[in-house]
């Protein structure tokens, strides 16, 4: 028996548990309530007639209408723009994550010429304002026929989503011991087979978090999406800026569009809620 085992381990230490504050429950709900005011206000606006919104201030609507939602679903401009946004955000998420996975794996596991510089350079792509890339994108896309295509927007958004995805995924991948890769190699797995069968399931929370970020950044991005589209691939955010007509602004419809725009974000968070805390702990953002 080794002697060190008789030494007393784990001496008394003060409780690690955090102190609980009084009134924290009340304060929590108060904070939530304050935060929710704009959102609730938006939802209430979306069910009030436009005239009421402008004329009188009231917290509880006196008249309800679902015209906004009906128009949103039935009017070409609106639901198409909404679908456009959904399409390019989804495409972008798929492309970005697919491309970033092998890249992040390489950054995590191999050393190659310029790896550190390349990793940093990826990040610098996020440092430039999107406006910097507007002109080249506009010009190039016109030349190659990607202008006003959802695919074009999806590819353009990869400019800042791929670096982000690589950055997040690299953190997750580095959290997996290299011995797992080696064990798989020794067991007889080829790299692609190992990657798909063993590795992807291991980092699925990381992939979930990455996909969430890619989707959200693509979804809320306005400048590039609006510049490289005109009518066919117009995003919802662009549609929302073009609501002024001869009859004035339709506030109800605009609020409805706002509510609808929040929904994908809420859904995305709902789906990754289990992973997101775990995700942030493992990876770094």
């Amino acid at each position, binding site marked *: 028996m*080794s*002697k060190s085992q008789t030494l007393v381990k784990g001496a008394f230490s003060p409780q690690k548990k955090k102190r609980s504050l009084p009134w924290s429950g009340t304060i929590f709900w108060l904070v939530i309530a304050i935060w929710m005011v704009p959102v609730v206000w938006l939802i209430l606006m979306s069910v009030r007639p436009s005239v009421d919104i402008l004329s009188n201030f009231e917290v509880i609507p006196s008249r309800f209408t679902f015209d906004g939602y009906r128009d949103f679903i039935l009017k070409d401009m609106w639901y198409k723009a909404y679908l456009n946004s959904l399409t390019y955000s989804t495409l972008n998420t798929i492309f970005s994550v697919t491309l970033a996975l092998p890249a992040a794996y390489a950054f995590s596991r191999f050393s190659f010429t310029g790896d550190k510089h390349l990793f940093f350079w990826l990040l610098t792509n996020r440092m430039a304002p999107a406006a910097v890339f507007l002109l080249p994108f506009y010009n190039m896309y016109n030349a190659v026929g990607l202008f006003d295509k959802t695919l074009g927007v999806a590819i353009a958004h990869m400019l800042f989503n791929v670096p982000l995805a690589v950055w997040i995924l690299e953190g997750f991948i580095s959290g997996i011991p290299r011995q797992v890769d*080696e064990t798989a190699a*020794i067991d007889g797995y*080829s790299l692609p087979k190992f990657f798909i069968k063993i590795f992807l399931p*291991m980092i699925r929370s990381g992939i979930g978090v990455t996909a969430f970020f890619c989707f959200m950044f693509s979804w809320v991005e306005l400048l590039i999406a609006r510049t490289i589209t005109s009518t066919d691939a117009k995003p919802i955010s662009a549609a929302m800026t073009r609501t002024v007509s001869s009859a004035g602004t339709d506030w109800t419809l605009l609020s409805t569009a706002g509510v609808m725009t929040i929904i994908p974000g809420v859904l995305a968070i709902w789906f990754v809620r289990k992973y997101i805390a775990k995700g942030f702990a493992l990876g770094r953002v």
Partner: protein
Amino acid sequence: MSLIAKNISLTHNGETFLDDVSFTAAPGITVLVGPTLSGKTTLMRVLAGLIKPESGSVTVNGVDVGAISVKDRSVSFVYQQFINYPSLSVFDNIASPLRVQKEKLSKEAIADRVNEVAKMLRITELLDRKPSALSGGQQQRVAIARSLARRSDVVLLDEPLANLDFKLREQLRDELQRIFADANMMVIYSTAEPLEALDMASHTIVMNEGRVEQDGEALDLYARPKNIPVAQAMSDPPLNLISSTLATANSESLGSVLRDKFGGAFTLGIRPHNIALKSQGAQDIALNGKVRIAEITGSSTYVHLDLGDSETIVLEVEGAQRFDIGSAMTVYLDRSAIYGFDPKGGLTLFAPAAVR
């Protein structure tokens, strides 16, 4: 069947990891013993094919495996950390090497094989669980089962029990010995614990600073180490080393004995259990010191004795006893258990005739 490592050397960034390592392993367990950073893991990784040595070759059953890629080799590896595939059930973990290997096995054959090794390692009732739901010992059992299921020519166990608690370690070690005793494979088992090597009582290779220091039966290495590193690697608690000049200054009787019998300067080595509190006979050598610490392990007490000149020896006293720190004490070295080492280079000059 055999595994032959020949003249394997590896340096990286000017640091030597392996220095001309050669040995032959027969079917059964070969124990690699040595302190941390002695190159055991590096050697295992070379044997597995995970790293290419700068020079030297690895031959398994007469075939030089140097050019064969890791995934095509008939080898399995168990890490000190419990490495399993967390997304797969225990059953699938054990079955995974069988599913990807070249010669395809039927579903039934795979299930049979998995159940067989699961039974051997007593994890049958855990087969449906995920590795994360298991204790450390169970996780390591799964990893070992996976390495067994494949029936590869070479099984590499890199300190497989180091992260387990003492009781589990002993139990699993006994089981491993039983399992690998009649397995027809070369099992290389590395450990930093001399007692594990002695317990395995098989072919043992002592490594130190990337070299093979000595190669032989565990008990032979314990009784007749070639040099100080081997003696240290095979002794737990560590061998006491005392310079003969200090011994002479400390104890006139020892000085005269040493001069008469062995002549010249050397480093004296003696194991803690060969030092007693009471003289066992006129042949014993007395040493004087002050008690520095006394560690009680239950069945015995280890007393650290300050000899002066910042040299310390440790002696093992039976039973739990109290010793006052700082008190003077005379202890008696069993002369027939003394080792002598060359102070330059550490080669063994003389060893006791019989192990005690």
